[in-house]
């Protein structure tokens, strides 16, 4: 494991970590504030990639396709939230899991129905193709560097939104005690829909960014979903900071696990990590003080 390989693997770990953070940040807020187990989050990731590919085929320019796709995913999420999910907030996790699994079946099959079984090509803008010469003689794919950059920018934006704005305070309060927030007269429905739409848009962005790396195909959201849930539980439900730390931790562990350990052990790595953390601290690393179970 020479120095170049170490740097490259660390960058790979960060890239996976950042992508998982985009997925986990939205979902951990939805879980923390609404105590809603939303397994359909993986489908927003998929729709993000598919909308971009479809819009690009239509308009021919990514500058239109990407924002269009994000808006499309956010609108779709708001629609799901207003019609179906809002009724589920009071139900227990079992109903929520089954409803959202049913929605996964529907979304995967709908995408296959609309765009056909074979994967689509995710277009990459010219300046992001190929790889770039970093310090020493490390070459690293430009696209993955861009993903890390975008991820960090989004993380900064989320940190600012959550920690510094009034809306962010409302979100953090909601994560800690949603009953009290409602009692204080905050417009809870708007908050829920807004958090949901933001979460879905972030998942869509993760889908757009990873479309070129992974094939854009029906069902692409499912195994990312499992990784995202692991990240959220490690980081502590409802905590965006926990999601960031958890995501980077899982990203690095998964990447180095695959590089160093035989594949059968590296597969188990993430789950052993999660089981270990939960065994020590049954509410994850950065549990929100006083958050409901």
């Amino acid at each position, binding site marked *: 494991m020479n120095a170049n390989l170490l740097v490259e693997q660390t960058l790979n770990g960060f890239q996976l970590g950042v992508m998982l953070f985009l997925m986990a940040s939205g979902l951990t807020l939805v879980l923390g504030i609404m105590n809603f187990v939303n397994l359909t989050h993986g489908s927003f990731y998929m729709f993000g990639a598919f909308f971009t590919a479809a819009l690009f085929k239509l308009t021919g320019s990514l500058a239109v396709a990407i924002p269009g796709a994000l808006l499309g995913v956010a609108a779709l999420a708001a629609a799901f939230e207003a019609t179906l999910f809002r009724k589920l907030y009071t139900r227990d996790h079992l109903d929520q899991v089954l409803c959202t699994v049913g929605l996964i079946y529907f979304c995967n099959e709908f995408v296959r129905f609309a765009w056909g079984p074979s994967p689509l090509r995710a277009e990459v803008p010219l300046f992001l193709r190929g790889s770039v010469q970093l310090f020493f003689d490390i070459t690293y794919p430009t696209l993955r560097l861009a993903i890390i950059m975008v991820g960090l920018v989004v993380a900064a934006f989320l940190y600012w939104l959550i920690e510094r704005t009034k809306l962010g305070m409302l979100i953090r309060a909601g994560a800690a005690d949603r009953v009290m927030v409602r009692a204080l007269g905050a417009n809870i429905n708007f908050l829920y829909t807004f958090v949901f739409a933001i979460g879905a848009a972030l998942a869509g962005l993760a889908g757009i960014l990873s479309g070129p790396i992974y094939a854009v195909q029906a069902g692409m959201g499912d195994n990312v979903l499992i990784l995202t849930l692991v990240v959220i539980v490690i980081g502590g439900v409802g905590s965006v900071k926990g999601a960031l730390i958890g995501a980077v931790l899982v990203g690095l562990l998964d990447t180095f696990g*695959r590089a160093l350990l035989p594949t059968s052990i590296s597969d188990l790595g993430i789950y052993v990590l999660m089981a270990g953390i939960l065994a020590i601290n049954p509410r994850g690393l950065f549990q929100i003080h006083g958050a409901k179970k």
Partner: protein
Amino acid sequence: MTESKLTYKRPPRWAACFAAAALLTPAVVVAEEVRIGFISTFTGAQAMLGAELLDGFKLGLAKSDGKLGGQPTTIVTGDDQAKPDIGRQLAEKMISKDKVQIITGVNFTNVLLGMSKPVLDSGTLLVSLNPGPPSLAGKGCNPHFFSVSYQNDGVAEAMGEYFNRKGIKDVYLLAPNYPAGKDLMTGFKRFYKGEIKKEVYTQFEQLDYAAEIASIRAEKPKAVFYFYPGSLGINFLRQYTDAGLKSEIPLYGPSFSLDQTIFAASGDTPLGAYATTFWTESLQNTQNQEFVAAFEKAYGRLPSAYAAQAYDGARLLDAAIKETNGKVDNADLLAQAIKKANFASVRGSFKFNNNNFPIHDYYITRVEKDSKGRTVMKPLEKVLSNHSDAYAKDCLMQAQAAAPK
């Protein structure tokens, strides 16, 4: 039919009758009609493989205007969802309810293994259009089982031979962590004499190969021999090209890693890679050119090896049923007719080994753009001719001149 009225006196009673009545849908059966059970994967991530197989098979049928051996033929399709238990349930339904004589299709080895016992035990013929697992080629060979496509290790053995011929000193091996992946790598190592830098198996559904590509860059091997079918192949090719390694370390793979299903969504990332295969759309023989033209006219895209295997399957059955002049009820007789395999295969030469696996030629090809700008696998040279698989010796069945049972 049961004559007991479904009484609705008390609602809970219909719960049980609901269960029993729901199952009574008898199927109308016409003797002497050829009924083919086509079980493949039509949903899920690998749905395109099922579509390719079915399209190829239907084209093969269309060549003898929808009949096999002059008999009216019906195809009963079933979606195994890439799950062994669903595949098995469909097979049993088709055997007992739809009374099929032949079951074919099947993309995945685990689905094939899941259904092979009940199908073969029931005396029905099982003709695999894609997986050719060692367990059915060696000790587990069966007179009613045929693999029209290949034996899994064949293309890898051919690549090993080609590496020896080209004198490639060391190689980096990469495949998913499932039996077909391991079979291929053992096949390659069976022939390859040089040094193996590293042999890495990745998780089956894994799509991001950044970690593996980084370690390839560090190892600096002369060549990479990788096996990633379907969407796995698309991702790997894209990521390998993005990492800028394609110019430094050439890619070699079996036909499943580099075929039309991959080219469609990969743009120009596969160009310059080498693949060993037993068939390519550029093979110059009349029946192949006719098949490729017909496929492109019918479906608007170039056929992949899966479609060619399915087409061969249909033509094989047509010739066999013609041989038994239309009779399909005697499975042993039909099996022997199939074993004769006197049909014009799109691969050129095609014979069955004693274990009912194909003996055919293997070529080395390079992925290039053809005159019309389409990405194709251009055959360079023949690597192995009339190559038979390594497991045939373990199979106790005799070769062609098997005494009729």
